[in-house]
């Protein structure tokens, strides 16, 4: 760690941080000066890794063409609350929100199982397959006693999510605009996907879902980092919200 930082570096660093917070990423094509500054300036990198990243609870992910800013899991300032996310995804209640989170995780599961870290990997996943996968997984649930017990402790739980999902029709042929409702599974998936598109995480072509370079890089460099991963896995098994 540097003893002190030059005012010039701090200024550059702050500009870079603001730009990243605003846009989420900067690429070589558009903001190449800032990016090159970052890459060539050890002091600037040091400033980020020792001060900015831990303080702002973000992580920079430098890839060959783009620098991404990733909010850490427990980021209160640059993260969202459940309520904000409900609004962004245009969902009615937390039950639906839970389901949306679950669908996103299922989508990632279809793209990233252990072998898909290889060079040739899936190029797209169709709505139907995502629907089948989620349905299968939720059907598997419920026979165990553990869920029953857990259910009592929490208001929103998997059982209600499962019922919500399984009670939906697979699709509704009478609807012309898929995204206008969340009352059938295909529409629900469409809604989640349009949120993911807005976030730059996927591209859609009809009912085919393609993951973006951004997702690819964050999964490979952030989620696969053993330290980060163990943090995430602890979150999955934790019974309450972290303080």
């Amino acid at each position, binding site marked *: 760690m540097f003893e002190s930082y030059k005012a010039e570096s701090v200024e550059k660093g702050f500009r870079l941080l603001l730009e990243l917070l*605003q846009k989420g990423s900067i690429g070589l094509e558009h903001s190449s000066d800032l990016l090159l500054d970052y890459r060539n300036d050890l002091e600037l990198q040091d400033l980020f890794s020792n001060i900015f990243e831990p303080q702002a609870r973000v*992580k920079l992910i430098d890839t060959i063409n783009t620098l991404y800013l990733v909010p850490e899991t427990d980021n209160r300032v640059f993260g969202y609350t459940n309520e904000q996310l409900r609004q962004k995804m245009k969902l009615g209640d937390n039950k639906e929100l839970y389901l949306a989170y679950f669908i996103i995780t299922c989508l990632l599961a279809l793209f990233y199982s252990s072998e898909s870290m290889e060079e040739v990997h899936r190029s797209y996943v169709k709505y139907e397959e995502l629907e089948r996968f989620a349905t299968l997984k939720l059907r598997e649930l419920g026979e165990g006693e553990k869920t029953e017990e857990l259910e009592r402790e929490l208001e929103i739980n998997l059982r209600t999510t499962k019922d919500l999902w399984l009670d939906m029709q697979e699709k509704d042929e009478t609807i012309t605009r898929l995204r206008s409702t969340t009352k059938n599974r295909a529409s629900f998936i469409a809604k989640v996907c349009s949120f993911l598109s807005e976030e730059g995480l996927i591209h859609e072509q009809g009912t085919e879902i393609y993951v973006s370079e951004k997702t690819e890089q964050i999964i490979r460099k952030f989620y696969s980092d053993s330290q980060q991963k163990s943090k995430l896995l602890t979150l999955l098994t934790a019974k309450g919200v972290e303080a």
Partner: protein
Amino acid sequence: MRTTLKGFAQRMKALCIYYPLYDLRNGRKYEGLDQVSLGFGVLLHILDNMLIGAEYCDQNSIAHFLKGVVEESCSQRLSEEEAREMAYYFLDALRNGGRPFSYAFQDLEEGREELHKFALIDTADYQVQGKMKYKLSETGLDLLFKTKEIYSELRISISQLYLRQQIEKGVFQEALRTVDELYTQVKGLHDRLENMKLQVIRNVSQLSVSDYIQVTAEVQEQLKREKEVFKSLQALLKQTQDTYRSRELSAREEHNLNLLLAISSRLENVINEHNRLFTVMLGLGSLLETALLDSMSNTFRTKIDFEREFVDEILQENTPLDNLRQVLHPLLLPGTSRYFNPLRALDSQQLTKDEELTEEQLVELNQQELQKELEREKAIKKARDGRYTGYLKLILLPLLEHEVFTLAGILAALTPEKYAQLINQVDFYSFLVQVHQMGSLPLRFDPQDRAKLIDTEGGNLPFLLAKLLDAHPELSPYGSLEISALRDEVPLANGNLVSNYMFRRKEAESDV
């Protein structure tokens, strides 16, 4: 037996890539039609669109193609909708529903099970909320070229051979086609290098350094050979054109000459593209270095299995809502809250109005866009011209003091900062290749020739040279600077190797 089975896995892999096509036979949907042929046709159509000048194709274009083929060869009429459906069916089948195809086989040479994974079609391009465009993957290209009995390493060389024969025999229409194919093949090599880049980015350990060195050495060698042949082809074309130009032409000959000109100009494109590969190779070298560093700083990266580790875990543990949100958080854009700022109350406001843009406004918008684009390009060009002028100075100014000097000598004389900056500028290498190709740089221009030199987008080296000579009259006593490659190579601090060049000044011939 050992020798019989040598390279067995490689051969099996070459065989595997045909399975998806044969599997089309089992499809129930179009039982009355020859689905294998139609699927193969779709691949050829995609290839056709990859040829020079054409755009990558989308689903509509494939539907259109299928409609035509089915109507002509199978005497069935398809509606637009049916054709689209059929296109989708084949696209989906030939992309295995988005998964790579995978075939297991017993490697008899090594005595172990092997799994070959590949894709035939890749996504070429997407636009947000627009159409996907498709291209053949390297394997897809391989498949098609193998049906023409050409080995991949020799593909370009063999096409070059074809082209030579076609020009010599005077079958120019076919020669034109061969040039287009050559373009695709060079592009294919480009893709192969790009793929290698991707592989390096994703996982550097999979591609061990020695493999890498071997592959690049092979490619380098091949590129050099091909380049020679291209030169001779250009000469042949010029010669052939000259025989036409020297006499009066019949209408048919006129037509042939036009074809020859088209072949020349397209060959020019192929050669440019081919030259670009040299630069890509250099980029690859520095990329590998970055990636190696990157992988060293990320030794803690592990594999991740979202199904087992996340989905199943959620089901098992009934993860609370808030924790699940946190787990997905890193994927989301940073959220910034907006606050009321009383000082901005008097700012001009944006009022939304439903208003369709008129034709004129659209034109104007387009023009603005165009203007911006132009300005951007201008800025890029200016920066590039600046760099090239710098490179020119670098190799020209030493001639004031020395008659003969080398690249190694020039580099050694640079300050450490200048040296570091220079070797990291990728276009410096293509500059060297370019001047080497030119053989010699003239140091004085005939006023008439000088007037003909104009500034263009790329390839304006002579223009920049003339400008530099204007600014440095002290160079004018000399006639030219000759450039030749020496046998040794100069290792650079960034791990790249460049040929050492020798520069020799030649006195001007007498002016009288």
